[in-house]
């Protein structure tokens, strides 16, 4: 198995903005690493650079100790020993399932009987036993995706690259394949580099998540870190619903500050060193870290009024307007019910909130 070291990687197409710029990333052996970001953030370009389909303008990629990409000189994809699963499956329509999967083994000149056994094992691994003779147009989308997986896995790549492999599947199948992918990676120990724009998918699957935006790495950390301790506003915003509350620092000492959001809403919160009284900051509060109570309830609660309510089944979502005019989105247990117009006490779990300086700088993680 193999780890990947990316340093100073940049790529620009035509005269536009750089697709990837100054990317540094260390992907450890046996890990499931997700490149996460909105479309156009450079995650697919990064994956294609790792695969060797395109060459970088600057920077290098090493697999273990071996230099595989540098400007103008790349080891071509067919010499990298990697596997790749494409968003559109890319299962060859003129070959049967068996022929698709055995292709890589034939290139490696594996003897027939051995190849046959390996194909059978790979198909069993993805639950496709018995479909060897089918053509791709006789398979469902999910089955085609499994063929693509089996085709990549059968050659035992050190590294498997996956480009939004689940985005063309329907929701139910997606969830099932997600679980299977995770299992597969844990079981095989292959290094997975997985590209997605779906933060829930990234959180569920990954050992490490690299959040990208506009060609730059914003944060690289465990799912927990990235979700709970976003490095900047962009990351916080991308990792699910957030409330952004502008505040003023009242006092600061030893990395802890008291901030005021107006209307008597005050928090004690960890801040970056150098923050001092009078600074404008922005508080990021996730909807699930706010609790609602009947008026008068809760600790250190402030008062608001329900402006909108949406029942989502497993949770209820409310928009609460505070006395100072800010709106907060709040998620509660569905059994806790309020009507639009109700007055409520709002309690914020400040320990879970994150504070950024008022003018957000795009910080590179790590």
């Amino acid at each position, binding site marked *: *198995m193999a780890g990947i070291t990316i340093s100073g990687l940049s790529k620009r197409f035509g005269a536009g903005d750089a697709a990837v710029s100054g990317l540094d990333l260390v992907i450890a052996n046996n890990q499931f690493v997700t490149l996460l970001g909105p479309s156009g953030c450079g995650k697919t370009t990064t994956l294609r650079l790792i*695969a060797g*389909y*395109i060459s970088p303008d600057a920077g290098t990629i090493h697999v273990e100790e*071996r*230099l*595989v990409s*540098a400007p*103008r*000189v*790349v*080891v*071509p*994809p*067919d*010499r*990298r*020993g*990697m*596997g*790749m699963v*494409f*968003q*559109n499956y*890319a299962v*060859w*329509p*003129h070959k049967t399932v068996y022929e698709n999967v055995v*292709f*890589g083994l034939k*290139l*490696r000149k*594996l003897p027939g009987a*051995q190849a046959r056994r*390996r194909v059978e*094992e*790979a198909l*069993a*691994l993805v*639950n496709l*036993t018995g479909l060897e003779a089918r053509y791709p147009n006789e398979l469902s989308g999910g089955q085609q995706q499994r063929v*693509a997986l089996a*085709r*990549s*896995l*059968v*050659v*035992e790549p050190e590294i498997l*690259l996956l480009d939004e492999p689940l985005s063309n599947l329907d929701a139910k199948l997606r969830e099932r394949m997600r679980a299977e992918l995770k299992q*597969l990676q844990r*079981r*095989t*120990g*292959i290094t997975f580099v997985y590209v997605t724009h779906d933060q829930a998918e990234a959180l569920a699957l990954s050992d490490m998540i690299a959040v990208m935006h506009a060609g730059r790495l914003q944060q690289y950390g465990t799912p927990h870190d990235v979700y709970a301790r976003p490095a900047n506003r962009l990351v916080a915003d991308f990792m699910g619903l957030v409330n952004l509350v502008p505040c003023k620092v009242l006092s600061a000492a030893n990395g802890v500050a008291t901030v005021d959001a107006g209307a008597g809403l005050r928090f004690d919160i960890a801040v970056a060193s150098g923050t001092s009284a009078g600074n404008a900051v922005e508080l990021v509060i996730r909807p699930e870290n706010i609790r609602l109570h009947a008026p008068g309830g809760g600790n250190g609660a402030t008062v608001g009024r329900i402006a909108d309510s949406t029942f989502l089944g497993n949770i209820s979502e409310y928009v609460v307007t505070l006395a100072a005019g800010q709106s907060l989105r709040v998620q509660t247990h569905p059994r806790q019910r309020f009507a639009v117009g109700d007055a409520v006490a709002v309690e914020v779990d400040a320990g879970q909130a994150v504070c950024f300086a008022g003018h957000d700088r795009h910080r590179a993680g790590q």
Partner: protein
Amino acid sequence: MSADVGRSAIQPGVGTAKIALQAGARRPPLRMRPRLEHVVMGAAIASLVVLVVLPLLSLLIGSVRGEGGLSLDHFGEVLSGRLYLQALKNSLVLGAWTGLFSLLIGVLMAFVVSRTDVPGKRLLQLTASLSYLSPPFLTAIAFVYLFSPNAGLVNVFMRDVAGLPWLTFNIFSMAGLVLVTVLHTFPYVYLLASSALQSVDASYEEAAQILGASKLRTAISITAPLVAPAILSGTLLAFVNAIALFGSQAIIGLPGRIVTLPTRIYALFDYPPEYGLASALSLVFVVITVVALYLQRAFLARRSFVTLAGKGARPQLMELGPWRWVLLGFGVVVFIVAIIAPYATLLAVSFSKSWGLDFWKGLTLANYKFILFDYNVTQRAIFNSLLLATLAATLAVLLGAVIGWIDLRTLIPGRKLLDYASLVPLGLPGIVVAVALIQFWLAMPFALYGTLAILLLAYIGRYIPLSVRAANASLRQVDPSLEESAQILGASWATTMREITLPLIRPGLFAGWLLVFVPVIQELSASILLFSSSSITLAVAVFNLYETGYVEPVAALAMINMAIIGAAIWLANRLAGGGIAEKTTGGQGAPS
């Protein structure tokens, strides 16, 4: 499925030995080594330069090279000499009349087929396809057999038997030339107009009608403007193709003393050959063609707002009542004039001892025996043409596939330029291609002129746009990820091409092959200047036999020509699995 199976299959060291790619194991130093694909791409680019760019450059140079250095004397003479101006005028008159009648017939047929309830639409479609595929010089010969002033069968019958001398028709006239040419060019208008009419979303017309517009009003103010660009584009294609046809202009124009640009250029090669004048006149010819094609592209580009809606398009069929029989009659007349008359004539002549009113009294196979077994010139011509057409089609398709691949799959700078260069021959009439090749290869140190090789180069060069378009269209249907997934599994470029790309674009390549084979087997305009007695081709043999008065064997050879075309279409259809004939006639075609 058990987890154990998975573990043994995938984990290295457990059960199976790790298999590594050879190169990966060797850890090659990181530098660019020339790979097969670079060699192939380089060869393709070089071929295009030799086939198209260099001959065109030598045409340009030849036109401005005077006795003492550069001069514009050739252009001066070409643009002021009476002979040349007359040829220019005749070509433009021919093109204009042909364009007009192609427009009328093509639009009417397209309208009838796509928008009315006229019966027998298959017959009309067949008429258009066959007219498009028929070698125009063979149609011309057939019409001469029917309408030459003295010996034409119809004329003889009207004058001597029916006693109706005023019903005779002299084919050796501008009217005759236009008639014969239109029979080949109206399909251009028909094809573009009918595809446009079928793609206009019916909801546009319904929207006008719900607002109170009558059917006629709707047709004039909604439908007509939407399809006008396609129709004009088809008309210009008809014009460009009409003026480039050497065969019919020589067969019908010359006896009628109607000299046109191709026949004038041809005459300039009578001894002593006037290369400078021929080059200058060729360039004038190219300018006309290129301007017309430029306008055509511009009109066609405007079609984009004509809704290629696809799903929403369900054209309304107009109920014509008794009028549909009138329009059916019109279709039948076109079918008879364009297909039955020439084919039946050639067939009858080919089995006659002597062509005349009582030809049926002496039917014989002697003509076929003569051209197939007795006369070595026609034997050689058939062999040469089969060889050249097969080679040219195969090479053009391979070259087209590589050029299309470079354009669509690589980021090589200048790849768009390559694509444009491959389209340039569309603007070159056949005889101009011949002039350019002669200029270029006469300047080379080895003798190519008069060999099969120069004919092969001419054919590939002329029809490379067709194969590039065909390859391009099929490559667009193949998602790059299908190739990339083979590559990442360790497949080299050659393996990826052989295993993935070529099998997937095979139907398109066969279509492209046929698109080149069919015109090559009937090519006359360029061959007429390039052949020698050893490299004579089928079309040239037909033309020469005709010129020397072998009436009956000409018809037999013409039938052989048609049989080869039919066999090629059948074969390509079988190999590619259907739909080829439609693709062939659906293409835009190069000027003949």
